[in-house]
């Protein structure tokens, strides 16, 4: 036997062994009737959904959204929207109203302790008041139309019937979508013009230590804005940015977003908005019912001298000092 013949023998032997060894593997791929099993390499829907959040494939039409075959997350979003949001939202908003009612019963209206002096000090310039009310009116419109989308079918639909409720909700949808732009404009204005006076200061700690002016007979020191007002400013700014960004994503659906992003945007929008409404309810309470002499600051722009003394002593001192320096009889706007 030549060397070449031996090599040939070894190769044939190896091939034979290989064929025998691979026979069971081939047999597994055959169907019961002996035909090749075409599903041998198919991934079942169950396995695909275990690996991925959704099943996607190729589609012939240009609509890329349609390439998502199955997204079980839709049912999760349904659960959020119909169970968590309804119960959680109702709890937070009604809970806030109840707490504010309780505060009114216990604390009552916080009066100007020294009574009205009759002297007025300018607290907010016309442009500042315009910025506030632009945002405020937009917010109320957005809040009511937004709550209608979530709670309207529970509260309003049984009262006015499906056709009237549909017309109302469609109008509300457009009001919500377009008022968002005046809200965003107002938010930017507020953010800019009130930024300096809302930076945290040392006096804010004292204000907090002295009970934030909620303890009767004591008046905590504060600059133009106290810590409570600063919190409203910063929380509103954060919530405002969050609802604006998520809202823009919802206004332009599927621009660089997919179905999961859209669901997430809606969840962020709804959750932040619920807490935002609760925050602003508290803000409205303290600015109207909760405190004597507070509303006129944003109403006419001028507050009573004694109110300013009791709630914003440091600011008032600065105001009066600058007035004396300038020698003007009328108060200058707060800066």
């Amino acid at each position, binding site marked *: 036997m030549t060397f070449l013949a031996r090599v040939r023998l070894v190769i044939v032997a190896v091939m034979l062994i290989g064929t025998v060894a691979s026979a069971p593997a081939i047999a597994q791929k055959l169907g019961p009737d002996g035909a090749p*099993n075409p599903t041998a390499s198919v991934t079942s829907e169950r396995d695909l959904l275990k690996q991925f959040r959704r099943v996607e494939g190729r589609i012939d039409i240009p609509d890329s959204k349609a390439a998502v075959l199955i*997204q079980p997350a839709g049912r999760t*979003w*349904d659960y959020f929207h119909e169970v968590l949001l309804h119960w959680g939202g109702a709890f937070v908003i009604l809970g806030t109203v109840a707490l504010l009612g309780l505060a009114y019963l216990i604390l009552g209206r916080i009066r100007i302790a020294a009574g009205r002096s009759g002297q007025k000090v300018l607290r907010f310039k016309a442009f500042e008041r315009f910025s506030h009310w632009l945002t405020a009116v937009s917010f109320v419109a957005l809040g009511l139309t937004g709550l209608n989308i979530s709670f309207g079918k529970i509260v309003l639909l049984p009262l006015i019937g499906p056709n009237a409720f549909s017309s109302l909700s469609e109008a509300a949808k457009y009001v919500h979508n377009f008022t968002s732009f005046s809200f965003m404009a107002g938010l930017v204005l507020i953010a800019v013009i009130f930024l300096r006076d809302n930076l945290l200061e040392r006096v804010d700690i004292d204000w907090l230590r002295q009970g934030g002016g909620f303890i009767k007979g004591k008046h905590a020191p504060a600059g133009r804005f106290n810590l409570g007002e600063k919190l409203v400013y910063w929380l509103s700014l954060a919530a405002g940015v969050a609802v604006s960004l998520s809202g823009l994503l919802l206004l332009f*659906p599927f621009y660089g977003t997919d179905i999961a992003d859209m669901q997430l945007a*809606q969840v962020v929008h709804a959750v932040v908005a619920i807490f935002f409404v609760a925050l602003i309810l508290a803000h409205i309470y303290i600015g109207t019912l909760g405190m004597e002499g507070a509303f006129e600051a944003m109403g006419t722009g001028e507050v009573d001298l004694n109110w300013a003394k009791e709630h914003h002593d440091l600011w008032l001192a600065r105001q009066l000092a600058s007035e004396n320096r300038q020698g003007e009889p009328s108060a200058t706007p707060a800066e």
Partner: protein
Amino acid sequence: MARMKFLCDADRCIDCNACVTACKNENEVPWGINRRRVVTINDGKPGERSVSMACMHCTDPPCAAVCPVNCIYPTEDGIVLHSKDVCIGCGYCFYACPFGAPQYPKVGNFGSRGKMDKCTYCAGGGGDEPSGSAEEFAKYGSNRFGEGKLPLCAEMCSTKSLLAGDGDIIAQIYKERVLKRGYGSGAWGWLTAYHEGIEV
């Protein structure tokens, strides 16, 4: 009472898109909307499968639950219908639908989606129009179901991959097929739509 369902036997679907065309023609579906579509999984790879998908007419339909104006509802046959008169075009049903069924005639920017359109199981509309009327056809498309017929997409499927009819009956047909041929990749979407798969 029958419980109407769809079942796509993906081992038979050949991605011919005839169901898509039949649906568009039968219901005169507006431009840009595909009530039924065929999606190919693992395209060009071993184990490639095509699945024809439309509204599955779910049990506890999530679209109906999230609708802010309650315009979507299941009929007594389990067919999910909606009223275009009540729809406000908010887009929520599309976010909730596991199968991408609800669609809109407009782009959707600034909420301008128009009235939602989706597969009606060829059973007309869920509005106030009389069954089988021209007004109903113009808004929702064909009402074959009212004439005792099944959806056209399934009726004309050349390989009988797409099945429509009572859920128990089409599940039985699928089971027999799987037993006879020895394989089956499952009833796509059933677990999500009806909370139950088909065990063979």
